[in-house]
């Protein structure tokens, strides 16, 4: 099968995701409102409670809003990843996942294309957020708007493949509340999104380790450093490893031989 065929397939999958995104305006709106509520209300209330000292990549004292911005960007991607995994479960019930899987193009390619399509949509959301966040004086160096891109791609891929793996592994992912309680909240709160890790270490050591090994922390920190055109080797390697693990698991989850698809009777 030639390269053009793969390319056409990839374009088609991305286009479909983009069209769905355009048609579901509420989804875009809520994806934008959510982090803005955190920024406008939570951060405003918390800034006096929490003092952030100077930690890399920051070079001066920063307001709390600036600190949590990368965490909120990662949150946009987390929600997007979980939402597209949820839509995958919904799709499968609707059968359109089946339509994709019976394409003669190899399944791993279809799944990765679908993931990248989701990442693309999440990046659009992130840039829209960054534009509005500039009203709060969250203005990274201009180069940051470009250097954040690779971090967004890899973290989007990681969170998307985690979602895809969950969609293949969990029997009933019927409502979003379950995903919120058991995936999104624990991942978001036990990370460096809202408070720096050293603060957590002061309070509880075991919680520090939970946060430290939480894949979401790696997404947040990679985004934080790249937003200031810096790179943190430790977090960069970590996020790549997590991405490979989740990708591998999700492709395994949809493998026709081993897969979890058949445990569900193909429904």
């Amino acid at each position, binding site marked *: *099968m030639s390269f*053009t*065929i*793969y390319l*056409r*397939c990839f*374009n*088609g*999958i991305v*286009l*479909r995701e983009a*069209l*769905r995104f355009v*048609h*579901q305006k509420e989804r875009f709106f809520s994806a934008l409102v959510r982090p803005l509520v955190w920024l406008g209300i939570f951060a405003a209330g918390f800034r006096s409670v929490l003092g952030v000292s100077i930690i890399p990549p920051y070079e001066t004292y920063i307001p709390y809003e600036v600190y949590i911005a990368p965490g909120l960007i990662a949150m946009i991607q987390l929600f997007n990843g979980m939402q597209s995994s949820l839509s995958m479960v919904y799709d499968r*019930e*609707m*059968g*359109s996942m*089946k*339509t*994709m*899987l*019976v*394409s*003669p*193009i*190899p399944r791993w390619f*279809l799944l990765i294309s679908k993931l990248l399509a989701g990442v693309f949509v999440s990046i659009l959301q992130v840039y829209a957020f960054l534009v509005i966040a500039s009203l709060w004086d969250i203005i990274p160096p201009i180069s940051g708007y470009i250097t954040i891109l690779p971090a967004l791609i890899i973290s989007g891929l990681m969170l998307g493949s985690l979602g895809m793996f969950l969609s293949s592994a969990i029997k009933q992912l019927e409502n979003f509340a379950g995903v919120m309680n058991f995936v999104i909240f624990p991942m978001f709160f036990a990370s460096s999104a809202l408070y720096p890790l050293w603060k957590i270490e002061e309070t509880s050591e075991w919680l520090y380790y939970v946060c430290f090994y939480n894949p979401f922390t790696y997404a947040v920190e990679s985004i934080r450093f790249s937003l200031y055109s810096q790179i943190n080797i430790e977090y960069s390697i970590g996020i790549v490893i997590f991405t490979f693990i989740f990708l591998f698991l999700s492709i395994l989850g949809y493998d*026709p*031989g081993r*897969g979890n*698809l*058949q*445990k569900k*009777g*193909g429904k």
Partner: protein
Amino acid sequence: MGCGHQSVNNFNMSTSALSIKNVSHNFGDFKALDKVSLEIRPGDFTVLLGLNGAGKTTLYSLITRLYNNNSGSIEIYGNNVRSESVKALRHIGVVFQQPTLDLDLSVRENLNYHSSLHGISKLDARKKIDKEIARINLNDQLKKKVRSLSGGQRRRVEIARALIHEPKLLLLDEPTVGLDIGSRQLILNHVKTLCKKNKLAVLWATHLIDEIDKGEKVVIIDKGKVLDSGNVEKIVKKTKTKNIREAFNKLVGIKI
């Protein structure tokens, strides 16, 4: 019997469109399929007749490689579904039991998406989509969102979609369930005409006995086993009954 009399495209008539040999499948302890064998030739319209839960959907999932068969072999035009899945899947068009169109996208957007999954170029896709959509008389609906279409129209769009990449084997899983009599008849006639005209091999799964016409090939399946297969007339004669309904009831053990 089949509707094909001449040699078909590049395929030799001796090649089966679909050849299933001794396929069994378990879900845990539950035996969904038990040594199922069946054969469809190019141009055959074959009805897979069975009650709900007989194993029809499982069989479809194995043919389309949604998951692998535990035992036996499935070949599509000589290509093994497991070892030569790319070649095998290229020949199949599928209409699943559940609706699979994107409701928020237009008919054309849905069909474009499908074309891209088969690597068809934009220009080519446009021609093929126009052709298939004209065949089901829905040209004026192309720009409309699928949500605004009736159940019967959606099904017809799904059949058109299954044919865009010009498959040689069309698989339909209970395609008429939930539709009114008019739509059912329209869809049934459409597929039977395609089968005759284009020498398309068709496997039509249903539990609706009135969808079977005289002379057609029927495979009766119950609790994962093929109870009988062959011509309607042959089965009726063999079971010493008056018609296929009685033959089916007798074989499956339904008492009225």
